[in-house]
C-alpha cells in the first residue's frame, strides 16, 4: 500500500507540472494529459521492464503513446523516471527545442518509442514491435495507449484484427476511455459502445479498470500477457481533466490554457506547495 501511495504522490507532482507547463508554454490538450497520468505512472514506475540508462536495450518493454497529444504528460514522466534531466523541460516549447505538442522520433529524445500525433499510427507500430519481438525470440511486451476518440480511426481495427489472427499475446492496448473527443462526447461522434465487447468480438482478451485507481491499475497491467494466448485490451475508465476539480469532465480543457490563478488553484488542490 505504501508503494501505491508513493505512486499517487508521483502522479500528483506530474499533474501539477503539466498544468504549469501548459500555462508557461501555451501547450493545449491538458484534459487529455490529466486523464492518462495515473496510467503512465503505473506503467513507467511499476510495470515496464525498462532501464532509463539503456533506452535502446533490445530486451526492453515498449510503451507507445498512440494518443500523441498527451505528450506533455509523457515528457514529465520520462524526466522523472530518469531518461533525461528534468531541467531540460525548462525549455519546453522554445524555438529550436525538442519538446513540442507531440512526441519527437526516438532518435531525438531517449525513452520515446514512436513519434505519434496523427491518430491510429502508434498502436499499429506497436503491433510491429511486438511481432518483431516474437521473430527475434525475445519476449518483451508492448503497451500502446490509445484514446477513445482515436478508436474512430480504421487503422486501429485493422491492427486489432491482425494481432488477433496472429495471437500476439505480448501486446496490450490501453484505451483511455474518458468519453470525450476533441469536439464532443465520443459515443455521440462515433458509436463506440459496448467498447470491451467490441475488442472481444475482434478476438482480444478484454477487461475494464478504473483508470485512476493506482492499486487496481497495477494489478490489471501486471496481467499482460494474461495466459489467454490473445492480445489484451484494457478499457480504462477515466475522467478527462482528472485531479483538478474545475477541469474534470469539462471538454473546454481540450484546448484551453490555464491562467496563473488557475495554475495556483490547481496546485492547491493537488497538494503541491510552491
Amino acid at each position, binding site marked *: 500500500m505504501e508503494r501505491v501511495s508513493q505512486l499517487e504522490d508521483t502522479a500528483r507532482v506530474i499533474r501539477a507540472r503539466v498544468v504549469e507547463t501548459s500555462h508557461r508554454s501555451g501547450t493545449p490538450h491538458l484534459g487529455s494529459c490529466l486523464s492518462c497520468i495515473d496510467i503512465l505512472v503505473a506503467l513507467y514506475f511499476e510495470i515496464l521492464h525498462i532501464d532509463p540508462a539503456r533506452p535502446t536495450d*533490445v530486451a526492453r518493454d515498449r510503451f507507445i503513446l498512440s494518443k500523441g497529444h498527451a505528450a506533455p504528460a509523457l515528457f514529465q514522466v520520462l524526466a522523472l523516471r530518469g531518461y533525461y534531466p528534468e531541467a531540460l523541460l525548462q525549455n519546453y*516549447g*522554445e*524555438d*529550436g*527545442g*525538442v*519538446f*513540442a505538442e507531440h512526441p*519527437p*522520433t*526516438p*532518435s*531525438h529524445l531517449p525513452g520515446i*518509442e*514512436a*513519434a505519434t*500525433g*496523427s491518430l*491510429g*499510427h502508434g498502436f*499499429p*507500430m*506497436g*503491433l*510491429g*514491435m*511486438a*511481432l*518483431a*519481438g*516474437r*521473430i*527475434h525470440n525475445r519476449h518483451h511486451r508492448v503497451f500502446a495507449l490509445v484514446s477513445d476518440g482515436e478508436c474512430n480511426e*480504421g*487503422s486501429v481495427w*485493422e*491492427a486489432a*484484427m*491482425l494481432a488477433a*489472427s*496472429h495471437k500476439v499475446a505480448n501486446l496490450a492496448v490501453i484505451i483511455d476511455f474518458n468519453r470525450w473527443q476533441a469536439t464532443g462526447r465520443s459515443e455521440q461522434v462515433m458509436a463506440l459502445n459496448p467498447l470491451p465487447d467490441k475488442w472481444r468480438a475482434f478476438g482480444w482478451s478484454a477487461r475494464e479498470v478504473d483508470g485512476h485507481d493506482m492499486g487496481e491499475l497495477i494489478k490489471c497491467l501486471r496481467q499482460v500477457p494474461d495466459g489467454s494466448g490473445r492480445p489484451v485490451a484494457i478499457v480504462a475508465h477515466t475522467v478527462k481533466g482528472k485531479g483538478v476539480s474545475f477541469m474534470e469532465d469539462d471538454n473546454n480543457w481540450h484546448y484551453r490554457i490555464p491562467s496563473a490563478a488557475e495554475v495556483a488553484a490547481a496546485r492547491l488542490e493537488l497538494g503541491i506547495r510552491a
Partner: protein
Amino acid sequence: MRNAFADEITRQGARDPNIVLLSGDIGNKLFDRFKQLAPDRFLNCGVAEANMMSVAAGMALSGLRPVIYTIAPFTTTRCFEQIRVDVCYHKAPVVIVGTGAGLSYAELGPTHHSLEDLALLRSLPEMNVLAPCDEVELRLGLRAALQQDRPTYMRIGKKGEPVIHKGLPVFRLGKAITVREGDDVCLISIGNMMPVVLAAADSLRDQGLSARVESFHTLKPLDTDRLTHIFDRYPLVAAVEEHSLLGGLGGSIAEWLARQHAPTGRLMCFGTEDVFMHEVGSQDYARNKFGLTAGNIAETVSAGLARLRAH
C-alpha cells in the same frame, strides 16, 4: 518482374534472418518458397495496407528489415500518411515494393493504375525512389535497397517484361546506367518504358539519328552528375516515363534544370527543403529556417535581378 522479385527476396531472406516479407493479401503461391524457407518471417497482413505500413515501421524500429509487397496504388496512395509519418519521419529502413508499375494493369481501370506514385513518394524526405527497367535492375536494386539505412520505394512491372541488360551492369543506387551510346540526342528512360524507348531509338537510327539511351533506375536521389554531362553534350534530351507528367522523371529533371540556370535563369523558387523539421518552433521560426521571410525573398530576388541585368 514479380517472379524475379519473389526469387530475389527468397535468396536475400535466406541470407539475412532480419528480412521479413509482408504482403497485402496478394501473390498467392508467388511466395511459397519464401514461406517454406522462413514461415515466421512471412506475414500476410490482409487487405489492410495502412496497418501493414505501420507494422513494417514498428518492425524496422526493432531491428528487422521489412519488405512490403502489394499492387502499387495500394502500397502508396492508400497508406501515404503511414509512409510519411511512420516510415519516413522515423527514417525506418522499410522497402516498399509496388507491383503493376504505371499502366501495367491498364485493363483493370484507373483504380489499379499507378501514375502518381513516383511524384508522391519522391516528395517525402529520407525516401529513395527506384524503378528498375528489367529483372536485372530489380535484383540489383533490391539488394542495394536492403543495404540502406533509410526507406526505399521500388515500383516494378508485372510479368513477362524483356531482359534489357545482357550481363551484370555496375549498379549503384542513384547512378544511371547507359544502355546505348549515341551522338545526336539522349533518351532518358525510367522503369518499364525501356523496351519502348529502345524501339524509339531504333526508329531514330532508321532516320539516320544516333540516340543515346540512359536507364534512370533511381529517381531519388537523382543522378545530377549524369544529367550535367548529358545536358552539356546533347542539344536535345527526352525523358520517358509511364507516369504522370507532373512531378515524375521529367518533372524532377525540369526542377533540377531550372536551378542549373542560376545565376542567369529567370525562375527562382522559395520553399521548404527536402527534410523533416525535427526541432520545435513557431511558424515564424520555421519560416525563417527555410528562408521564407520577406527580407530573404526581397534580397535574393533583388540580387538575382542585378545579376541578370549585369549579364
